[in-house]
């Protein structure tokens, strides 16, 4: 079970305020699909607006990135830069 945290307030409207989830998923794509199943529309929001930190490493557009059973996954706003 990956432990998922979505602390960013833009996620709350989708999750009804819930910020932490336990998700069974082998990779990021499945994780997003599962969260979208639980909270319709959330998947699209994650894909468009969020980056995903897996065990401390930030990924953007990384559907295939594998998740360990005990992975710590953070959904954070996408980062740009100058």
């Amino acid at each position, binding site marked *: 079970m990956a432990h998922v945290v979505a*602390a960013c307030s*833009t996620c709350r409207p989708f999750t009804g305020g819930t910020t932490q989830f336990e998700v069974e998923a082998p990779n990021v794509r499945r994780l997003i699909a599962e969260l979208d199943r639980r909270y319709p529309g959330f998947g699209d929001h994650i894909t468009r607006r969020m980056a995903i930190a897996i*065990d*401390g490493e930030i990924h*953007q*557009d990384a559907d295939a990135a594998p998740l360990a059973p005990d992975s710590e996954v953070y959904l954070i*706003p*996408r980062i*740009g830069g100058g």
Partner: protein
Amino acid sequence: MSDFLDRSEATLDLKVVGTRPVRPDGADKVTGRATFGADFAMPGMLVGKIKRSPHAHAAIVSIDTRKARALAGVKAVVTAADFPDLASEAYEAGEGAANLRDLSLNCMARGKALYDGHAVAAVAATSSVIADAALDMIEVTYEVLAHVIDVEDAMAPDAPLLHAHLFTEGLEAKPDKPSNIAQRNRLTRGDLEAGFAMADVVLEARYTTAAVHQGYIEPHACVAAFGADGQCQVWSSSQGQFMVRTYCAKLLGLESSDIRVTPAEIGGGFGGKTTVYLEPVALALSRLAGAPVKMVMSREEVFRATGPTSGAVIEVKLGARADGTLVAADVVLKYQAGAFPGSPVGAGSMTALACYDVPNFRVTGFDVVTNSPKVAAYRAPGAPIAAFGIESAIDELALKLGMDPLALRMKNAVRDGVKAAYGPTFRNIGYVETLEAIQNHPHYTAPLEPGQGRGVAVGFWFNIGGESTAAVNVGEDGTAVVVTGNPDIGGSRAAMAMMAAEVLGLPIEKVRPIVADTAAIGFSMLTGGSRTTFATGMAVTQAAQKIVVDLKRRAAQIWEVGADQVDWIDGAAVCLDASKTHPDLTLAALAARSARTGGPIGAQVSLTAQGAGPGFAAHICDVEVDRETGHVTILRYTAAQDVGRAIHPAYVEGQIQGGVAQGIGWALNEEYIFDRDGRMENAGFLDYRMPVASDLPMIEPILIEVANPRHPFGAKGVGEAPIVPPLAAVANAVRAAIGVRMTGLPLSPPKIRAAIDAR
């Protein structure tokens, strides 16, 4: 990945990476031959110019272009009516997700002008003089509306509304009426009240910063040619030719494949050239005129109509134990977004406490639209503003606690294994090493004269990865060309060539890098976010490694041994089979026989780079203040930063020195000044006061190298972190010099003299 993870362990014997060769594009740039945005010309080219709103906020009642169209020499006039009326849609291409409708409306106002300088119409004519005359003949009828620019005024319930359809995002309950607050974001951890209850010392303060401009010396410029068959060419100065292509296609309803964008040399960007202003307009004019159109902004236009970064209010409440341990932090950030949503307050919130290990905190950010130019990314977008508040407050807290400000930072410093305030757990960071470097630097303990003061401050930036493509092609003589899709703003061609040379075992002079147009290389995200050396460098390295694998195969074929019996050492294939006595095969030798060993030698790699390592910076600043005139002199500046590994140390140092100089300008004199009617009063380099050579001392960089295991050579982004600490480093030094805390930037002489007199 793993095979070059080993490499980065074994990078001790690097031959090219870490040296300081002359940049491959250098000669063109010191002889005036380099072609920047405004230097390109085409036969039959017209001059395009933009008519801009003189009002900060006004309804556009009508635009009559008949007289202008009738003027001899005028070939095209466009208004918003000539652009598709796009639906509101977030789209990923430039800096995070841009709203295409907003982007379109920023390029050409539709129905409403939202800031002084907002484009309302454009002309293309046979000469600059005729184009100017035509602009004067365009009759625009405005209904002037009340405007609002100050961020807190704009947040007030009774403030003039910029967008009737804008409802605040991120609130628990969906709001029932529109607001200038586009979004409220919040980051929380632990129990704030319990945290402050544990505190022996609580500090509360409010800080403000003014809107400042990126200040690149090259104004925006482009040439656009719309073909009769719908195929378009654009030459422009930007941070990303693919970004220009995508936005032009979306804003004009064209196919990406019909637009070929060639990047000109870019005269500075700092984030300000990560979006489009002129290119879609130039294409629209060219389509009507049937001729190429060149558009070049004046400096006044650059200030009035292109991205500054936010003016802001930062409210900070810190709680600490008597020993300096931070136990609670409550931070509120209010950022101007300009005419459309999208201030960097999100990154501001995430970076605000990134250097500190605080168990209980709440960071609340407000993204607020105002009647000023839409903000654009500016070097570590959002972070310097938040850091000015936090680092000033930490300095005050140190005074209250009677602690050394650096010791206070060290005590609360994030380390590997600590959960960052924005969520994830830090790994392979070099923050403590960076703090130690300035603590141990002679500067930190050097004596000061009366009237002088010393300040320290720290800063953080994520750095990003993302999509990049690189191709490496070997010539018949064994030399190589590296092709990437990232404009070279500050010497990245050199870094790309060096990484390829390192892997291939070639001297740097035998590797030539080029930046290709959108038709000649695969997609690459723009140059920004300190991603190019990391992400594009990763693509270049992998392409070179693919070539090495292929070269070993070719040598094995020639020697009739197994590929595992061939190694690649110092640019040559070496036979490991002891029973054979083959002389080594150099790259040149293999290239000469390439036709018979499988054809031309080359490889292309497209990837999405993950695992960019964050950058941490710690700065020391000494100032002297003239108590009678309020004038601040920067006496000495030292800047330490974890850079992972410096590919070309001289250009890494240059990034740090440049970031510091911009930060000092932000701290001392730079600001957008608006008159009562919301018109910018200082839209020029005379009164928008950026640092000149005589304003600054030498800036001493200290490179800390804590390698990033996800990059083949250990590189981390370096371009942005250096602009984060200087705002507070200067303010803290001024505090030490005059004994008064200045809470509002810029620290211009009138403000400092007034603060001294007020004591």
